């Protein structure tokens, strides 16, 4: 059942620090089980590099179950590699063939500066959430959970959007380096729910405007949706756009801006 791939050539981006120039370096992996995950292949390579006295390749990863959103690799020009709806950590070597050449690059965007090798800093996402990606509900004051019935379709739609793992593949894949899918997924999640209505328009305004400080603009290519490991639909972008419009026009007076 388990086969081995032979002669894999890896072209991996090495960069020693945020302000250093980087370059591609080639590595050969002579043999690897097709049961190995892509990151395990990198582990294997790293162990060899350490044995050879070289510095291991730095890459972000943690849960390896496709849910924490830490892994972030541009594999052969695709965010998270060739498998649909799959984060880098869940990609397996059986998707490749013997003799393949695989190019691995970090996410690239102004808002995602490279930390080292393949690792980038995605704090800009946190800044967006901090600006409004929450429902203000201090601990202790919550009413009974069943007080507000939420229609199942509404709850399901909110859940579809809430699945975002914050990996940044949307930004990485976007030809414009835009973060609209990430931002809108959170806006859609909270703005669809009854609990989120009180801050609905303040939220969308704050989040969209914070996003603007870091990222490019959406021109509706749809690359983000195709790269998203959770297959979040660009419908959420339309929803956020509509809410931003309403926040700016219809609710300008109620917002009491100063």
């Amino acid at each position, binding site marked *: 059942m388990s086969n081995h791939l032979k002669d894999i050539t890896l072209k991996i981006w090495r960069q020693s620090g945020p302000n250093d120039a980087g370059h591609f370096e080639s590595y050969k992996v002579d043999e690897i089980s097709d049961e190995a995950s892509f990151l395990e292949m990198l582990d294997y390579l790293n162990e060899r590099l350490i044995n050879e006295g070289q510095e291991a390749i730095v890459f972000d990863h943690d849960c390896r179950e496709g849910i924490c959103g830490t892994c972030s690799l541009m594999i052969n*020009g695709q965010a998270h590699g060739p498998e649909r709806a799959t984060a880098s950590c869940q990609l397996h070597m059986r998707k490749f063939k013997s003799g393949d050449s695989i190019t691995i690059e970090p996410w690239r965007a102004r808002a995602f500066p490279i930390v080292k090798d393949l690792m980038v800093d995605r704090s800009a996402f*946190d800044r967006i959430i901090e600006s409004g990606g929450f429902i203000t509900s201090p601990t202790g004051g919550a009413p009974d959970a069943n007080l507000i019935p939420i229609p199942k379709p509404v709850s399901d739609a909110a859940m579809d959007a809430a699945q975002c793992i914050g990996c940044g593949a949307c930004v990485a894949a976007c030809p414009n380096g835009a973060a609209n899918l990430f931002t809108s997924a959170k806006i859609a999640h909270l703005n669809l729910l009854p609990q989120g209505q009180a801050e609905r328009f303040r939220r969308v305004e704050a989040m969209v405007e914070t996003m603007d400080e870091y990222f490019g*603009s*959406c*021109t509706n290519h749809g690359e983000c949706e195709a790269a998203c490991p959770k297959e979040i639909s660009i419908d959420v972008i*339309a*929803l956020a756009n509509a*809410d931003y419009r309403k926040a700016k026009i219809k609710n300008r007076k109620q917002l009491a801006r100063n």
Partner: protein
Amino acid sequence: MAQVLHGRGPVTATATTTRKRRPFLLDLYSTAVGKKYAMAITGIGLMGFVLFHMIGNLKMYFGASDLDHYAEFLKKLLYPLAPKGTVLWILRGGLIAMAVIHIHAAISLTRLNRTARPVRYQSERDYQVANFASRSMRWTGVTVFLFLVWHLLDLTFGVTNTVGADGEFIRANVYDNVVRSLDRWPVAAFYILANIALGIHLFHGVWSLFQSMGWNNPRFNKWRQAFATGFATVVVVGNVSFPIAVLAGVVGG
């Protein structure tokens, strides 16, 4: 290549930053999403223009007098309530303003997007769904704009047109001007090419405007792309038929 890491060390108080207060429209236009609204709304206006322009020009199939009368009719919109040409100029003014805004927004968003990824990918990208139309918007847009300039010089100001039978360019003789212009095959080819570019621009732009404006509803979502394709096809087929008809001698022959 220098990059600055953000979010290091203690992170606080980012949410409380307040934006400078600006007049409403400028405030809206200052964000990328706001600019996309501007592009969508001006896009709708320009869509209306290209559609009616095409429909109006179909008059050439009924002969010179129909087309020339139509041109005269445009000048006399709401005449005598308004002086001759006034309404037309108001419409033109609106169109020019829309085009200016559309182009300004496009340029500033392109700039923004360039700075959003100062270091490009160093390996080849493998795009999944971004198609030729969506990725060439700025080139099809530029093509259409250049064509528009030439088109005005050609048929409105007569600068690039040939001289008519009476030795000068007479703007009111629309039918003659069109036939003389499109009878030159390089002109016809440019005309066809530019209209195909327009079609590609519309193919993505018309669909895109629904997203930008947030007009998204499961009931009509599947019709959005069909509408865009249909609209682009109608405009392109109508417009491209003119040079072909002229070259084939169906019009002006």
